């Protein structure tokens, strides 16, 4: 009850303080983006602007609709909230406009490292960073005298001990659902072993390598300590397993860490036992087996200059430094906004950045590679084929789609 009251009052203070901030626009603003707490905050921040209509369509299916919704003349969406993975589709189709003029005119509060520049032109404004890192149960590790894993090899050894102790039957968790999630885990591991997806600066695939084989084998070893249904578990399902106390160590998104154990029905054991640490390395490498992401917003190309200006003003208003005055908002993400002081929940992502984790490549053909990996890797995880065969299948599948899309 007390907590509820405090929440209620912070909300009121937040509302009062934000309405004091004037934001007026003169043309429509229409936003499309993913749906998680930090992005919802941005969406409602844009809606505070008065003078014209602001709408936000925030959905997990945003990638399926943003290209189509920004291709018409005029575009339905004046802004798309994207990540370094999903901005590529908008860039490939030439659907977003350079923001240099607008940044000069209205973007005084933005920090330089928030500006995503491509070929010298500002194409997006980032507001948060994200990465996958270790999430674990400190109570279980302590009970068994296990140090916090720093490498995937440590994680395997810890998993073995935990299973042998009988505390947790399938101690390792991971978003290994066939498709995007599984491919992302492969990317992490592949980069951790020092692999690079493409030959030089070309679109030629390069996953059929020593690093690829090692990455697949490590994933297979980890999967033996997972729930047998792991190929159907996305990050939501993996988090649910953690909340239920069925998982003791996992590689999970930083953006989920803050609210991971806030749900109803989570036992005190899990709530107090949960802790986070930086991403793990693998195979003696220095680069963490993880990838860095940013989330940011863009402005559509096929809209009038008035609409673009209004959109820029509204979106800048949504990520102004004062939104961090609210404790709940501050906790939602690792914000790149001026004046952000990291919370406890941000330690993992900060460690990832400090350890020079590789950012997800913003290449026009990276998405094709990602989806080829997601499609082909499940056969290996089920033991149906060898690592070499899977890797050559990935390259073949990628080549077929890259030829179709005109990259090879």
């Amino acid at each position, binding site marked *: 009850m007390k907590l509820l009251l405090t929440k209620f009052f912070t909300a009121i203070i937040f509302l009062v303080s934000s309405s004091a901030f004037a934001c007026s626009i003169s043309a429509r603003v229409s936003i499309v983006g993913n749906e998680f707490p930090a992005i919802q905050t941005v969406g409602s921040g844009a809606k505070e602007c008065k003078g014209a209509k602001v709408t936000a369509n925030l959905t997990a299916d945003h990638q399926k609709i943003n290209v189509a919704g920004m291709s018409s003349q005029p575009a339905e969406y004046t802004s798309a909230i994207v990540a370094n993975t999903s901005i590529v589709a908008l860039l490939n189709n030439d659907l977003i406009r350079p923001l240099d003029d607008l940044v000069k005119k209205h973007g005084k509060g933005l920090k330089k490292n928030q500006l995503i520049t491509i070929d010298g032109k500002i194409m997006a404004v980032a507001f948060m960073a994200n990465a996958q890192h270790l999430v674990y149960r400190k109570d279980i590790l302590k009970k068994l005298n296990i140090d916090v894993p720093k490498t995937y090899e440590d994680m395997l050894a810890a998993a073995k001990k935990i299973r042998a102790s009988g505390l947790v039957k399938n101690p390792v968790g991971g978003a290994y659902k066939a498709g995007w999630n599984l491919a992302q885990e492969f990317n992490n591991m592949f980069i951790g072993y020092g692999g690079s997806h493409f030959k030089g600066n070309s679109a030629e695939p390069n996953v059929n390598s020593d690093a690829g084989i090692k990455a697949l084998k490590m994933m297979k070893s980890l999967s033996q300590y997972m729930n047998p*249904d792991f190929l159907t578990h996305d990050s939501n399902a993996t988090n649910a397993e953690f909340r239920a106390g069925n998982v003791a160590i996992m590689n999970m998104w930083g953006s989920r860490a803050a609210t991971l154990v806030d749900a109803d029905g989570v036992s005190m054991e899990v709530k107090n036992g949960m802790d986070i640490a930086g991403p793990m390395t693998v195979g003696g490498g220095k680069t963490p087996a993880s990838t860095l992401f940013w989330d940011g917003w863009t402005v559509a190309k096929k809209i009038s200059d008035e609409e673009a200006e209004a959109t820029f003003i509204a979106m800048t208003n949504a990520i102004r430094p004062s939104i961090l005055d609210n404790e709940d908002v501050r906790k939602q993400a690792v914000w790149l906004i001026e004046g952000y002081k990291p919370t406890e929940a941000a330690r993992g992502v900060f460690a990832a950045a400090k350890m020079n984790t590789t950012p997800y490549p913003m290449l026009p053909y990276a998405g094709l590679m990602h989806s080829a990996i997601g499609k082909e890797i499940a056969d290996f995880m089920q033991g149906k084929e060898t690592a070499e065969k899977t890797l050559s299948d990935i390259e073949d599948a990628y080549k077929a789609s890259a*030829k179709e899309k005109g990259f090879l």
Partner: protein
Amino acid sequence: MKHKTFFWFILPTFLAMFFFITLPIISVVIQSLHTPHENILITVENCDPFGCKKVTSIDHEATRDLKNEKPLGRFVGLDIYLDRGHLAFEQVKDHWNKSRDLVSFFSLISDLPFYKAIFFTLTFTFTVTPIMLVLGLLIALGVNSINKQLKGLIIFFSLLPMIVTPLIGSIILFWMIDSRGIVGNFLQLMFEDPNFSLKASTFLTWITLIVYGVWHAIPFSFIVFYAGLQTLPKDQIESAQIDGANTFQQTIHIIIPHIMPLITFVTLMQLMDNFRVFEPIIGFNAEAHATSLSWIIFNDLGGETRQLSAAATSSILTIFGIIILLIPVLIKTWKEFDFKK
């Protein structure tokens, strides 16, 4: 019916079919023969919160003229039909030369996405359709013979699986068969194997999908057959009873021939429906074990990659698949029609 009357009668339907079926299919065919232009790639410097880096990007200025000149893209003929994502002629030929017998040949080509999807789709279609026909008929016969007061209630409950949206139905079942769900737990107890999981093996996933397919499709065949049973010729049944035919003989010799046209109709509808199996694969998160042509189309269209030409090609291949499946049934219908005339 006079030809003129028939013409005016059919015109609205014909127009609607032309605009909403024929034209879209033609556009899909055209799309499947074209691909996007080759991208002119340049190296540029990108900066993000994590630093600056030289990366490859698309030169939009250079590609724009090409796009304006030929908005449809490059004409590539049947290239996409033959590539690895679809019919994969090259790989199939290669596998054929490499494999010694048919079994190893099929196991090799079942690794190619299109054939993998076809194998599951056909297995699904040819198990679900007959099981559903038989069970639907049995339920219809059963319901037809119970007393009137109960009938309404029983019919309502028998129709429930069809009322539930396929996606919702499969998600509900997905959680029930989870190793921690009620069905999953029960199976673990029954087999005395705490690691038993319906979702972890391909074989069991296929069984689950087929059981779901039958469960979802039975109400349709049941209600059609039940309606057919209301028109049974009473005198024929009575004379058969007088001749000493038992229930089984009556069913085989009178009831089934009587509702044969309905059986053909249900088969036709279900072959089409089952061939484009899609929702259960999504609902059961079964992508790792089972894919279908519709799932491939969905996967190509979704996400960041949007392979429109690949999706168009898969759509055309699905249409061909349905035509091939339906040919026997259509020939049969045509013959019956001629015979009656």
